């Protein structure tokens, strides 16, 4: 049976349909979960997609983290379930304290939508498991507040623990240590600014995102089997 992915929709989220399409492309079943729900339904993995939850008002993710569904997401994560936040979803996860650090305005203070090259620097996460270290992927970025910051102690911990899963080859936003994606210590919660769901079809310029999403689907299937 295909892995079941719950795609969380906040008011203002806008990449939910794209994530559903991309997850289906890599063989998963995906369904939308409204932010007001307290239950994720039958899910082997959760994706928080990109967009502008609550208009990004106040700070990206600041209001969304209070949504009822986030308690269920936190529980799912605590039980070891795979949770991936893409772009705005990454911002929500940091605001919710499920990932360390914060995402601030891009260096340059402008929105950036462009292809980005990223490198897999750790396979200790549900999104990169099984990928050879050093694999380079072309995956677009699309954000205004994508510059990852954290204090030096946290950064040291992230590095030592293999929690920096993706780095930019050409840093588009000023992220510390070129960080494009981080995982929690257990590796089951991952946030990344690039949009793998936008890179699942050569017709659109790149299919590299499939590698990440396939890894997630495999991990999700494994979790269920266990």
């Amino acid at each position, binding site marked *: 049976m295909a892995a079941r992915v719950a795609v969380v929709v906040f*008011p203002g989220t806008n990449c939910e349909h794209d994530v559903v399409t991309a997850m289906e492309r890599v063989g998963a079943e995906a369904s939308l979960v409204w932010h007001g729900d307290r239950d994720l339904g039958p899910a082997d993995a959760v994706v928080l997609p990109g967009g502008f939850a609550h*208009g990004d008002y106040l700070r990206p993710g600041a209001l969304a983290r209070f949504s009822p569904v986030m308690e269920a997401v936190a529980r799912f994560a605590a039980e070891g379930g795979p949770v991936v936040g893409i772009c705005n979803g990454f911002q929500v996860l940091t605001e919710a304290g499920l990932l360390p650090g914060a995402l601030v305005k891009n260096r340059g203070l*402008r929105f950036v*939508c462009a292809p980005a090259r990223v490198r897999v620097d750790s396979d200790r996460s549900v999104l990169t498991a099984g990928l050879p270290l050093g694999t380079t992927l072309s995956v677009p970025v*699309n954000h205004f507040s994508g510059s990852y910051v954290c204090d030096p102690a946290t950064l040291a911990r992230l590095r030592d623990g293999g929690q920096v899963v993706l780095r930019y080859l050409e840093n588009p936003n000023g992220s510390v240590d070129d960080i494009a994606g981080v995982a929690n210590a257990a590796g089951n919660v991952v946030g990344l600014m690039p949009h793998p769901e936008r890179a699942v079809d050569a017709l659109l310029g790149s299919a590299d995102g499939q590698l990440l999403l396939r890894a997630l689907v495999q991990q999700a299937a494994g979790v269920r089997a266990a």
Partner: protein
Amino acid sequence: MTVAEEPLHRALGLTDDELAMATAVLGREPNHLELALYAVMWSEHCSYKSSRLHLRRLPTEGSRVLVGPGENAGVVDAGDGVAVAIRIESHNHPSAIEPHQGAATGVGGILRDVFTMGARPLAVMDPLFFGPLDAARQRWLVEGVVAGISAYGNSVGVPTVGGELTFDPCYAGNPLVNVLCLGALPVGRLVLGRASGPGNLAVLLGSTTGRDGIGGVSVLASAGFGGEGAGTDDAKRPSVQVGDPFEEKRLIEACLALLDAGLVVGIQDLGGAGLACATSETAARGGVGMDVDVSAVPCREPHMAPWEVMTSESQERMLAIVTPGDWPAVAELCARWEVRATVIGTVTEPVPGDGGAVGRLRILDGPGGQVLADVPAASLADDAPLYDRPRAEPADRTARLADDPTADEPAGDCAADLGALLVDPSWVYRQYDHQLFLNTVVGPGADAALLRLAGPGLPPSERGLAVTTDSSPRWCAIDPRAGTALVLAEAVANLACVGASPVAVVNCLNFGNPEHPEVMWQLSEVVDGLAGACRDLGLPVVGGNVSLYNESAGADIDPTPVVGVLGLVDALRARPPGMGLVAGATVALLGERAAPGDQPHPLAGTRWAVERRDRRSGRLPALDPAAHGRLVALVAALVSETVAGGPGLLASVHDVSGGGIGVALAEMAIAGGIGARVRGIAGHRELFTELPSRFVVATHDPEALVARAEASGVAVSLLGMAAGDRLVVEDAEGTALVDVPLAELTASWRDALPGRLDDVADAAG
């Protein structure tokens, strides 16, 4: 004369004759509220009173047209059960005052026009026009406008897939911000903005109503008509509105869900003239009347007077007509999307009158309360004045036509001219989400955008949609009629570069002051140029917008018609070749190399003449519609072979437009990262002429290309090869006109905008 001394109707912008017309319609003097309604609805912006007469000359019929001009957006049948809605509009004046919010609310407005039709907005384009960037104020405008479009479009979740960027001194005091939106819907969901069914409810959806965008009507405050505390303080009546993309996003989802559930009878966005326009237009289109309870309208500020409520242009609002039985379901669905929904009125039976039944728009204070205004609904929309304003050819026209820069000598440094003409607009479009919905096969930076015809709720289709916007104030300033025809020809050529055939046109006519006879002459010429070219190319105009009074310090902008053209691709399975050169390919020109007559390579109106030599005169080359049609059909066919997944003959393709063959070659070399060597170019004239109906292409099979071209009756010349790391252009004798490292050209191209824009600009300029 101060406002106090001026008669009220004039202060509101109505002429004495217009007041007499309103009085005749009512059979009595309008009261202040009624006067406000007529003033906003009969404004140039809402009534098109100066341009309507001319716009009638545009062809609007076509086999694919489902909805032509007059509705909120044009709609065409794209096949496979999908219809496409398209509309273009200007937001020039607000953007000049507050570039960020002005441009942002422009995006919001055009989206509402499209989802009003039942279409999900899928793409935005933004043709922009500014003064030269040397001035700090222009940099501030560019920064603000682009940031505003970026902030609103990205957040609301509609990709911006292209646009245009033009710098010319004529826009220094009056920038132009046009926005095009394209959406798609299952054909069956098409709805029109009309009310029907007396007893049905008028429901206001979305944002609260504030004192923003009341503009000219605000003189009523000092006319002693306002309610308690009504806007005696100027600060309370900002003319600038702040956009809320988050509200708009919820409004889009709620409205599309309402339409999907079949819960609305009609729906209409609130734009210019706010509730006055939405209520009177829906009633007039449906041949009914409407009772509106102003006191029911949720207001953002206390003590708003009825005229303020009725004319406010607060953003992110829609008016839906629903049956009383469906109202609870409507309310529930809106609550889920956190969209405010309030019953503010009722559809009423037309009242028998002298000339047949008349639907009346009545404004009431409370349900069944005092009648504050009572006018025939259609009189606000349909009885607006219509002016045939005086037109006059500019006095210097003959002299200007005769003063042609083609003859100018010496030529100057072609390489330097070429470098200076290269501009990479990615500084702009990197700030726009251009990929959302996973449809964008070709985004900004190419000749036209190419999208998969797909979206949530649409039936599956293999087709592709192509869209481009084009304009050329350089050409139109010299000859508005011929220039406009050339602009449409270029747009169609842009579509061919991605393999698409054109199906429909929208246009935004940006002009100066219509009270200047030269401006009215320009407008009339442009309409004729567009009408003629549309007829010649077999294209219907399905919508448009007119923006007048674009002037500053008494100087009008150059006539700036912007066309948006929608094209279709039957089978979109692979990416088109694109403009990038491929090493080892033969570079060829499709189309005639020279114009007939004594000016084989005319330079009038070219970027070379205008931007590099400041020469704004001469005679434009003529468009040969038949030859153009053959050429674009050939190119579209060649490209569509690749797009359908076949091997294809073309390795790269780019139409020749601004900057001529020189710029086309350079852009192709830069995009491909490979140099080229080309010979036989007849000096700077052939290098920079913008003679229409030509493409530069590259192919690995030149013989087959020549054969295809000859079979289609299209001229073809082999120019050279793509190779190396320099761009070399030689004349027939082998003398180099241009010989520069590709790296140098790439740097001038890439740095043109960032070099001038990457510092905080100064508002005060």
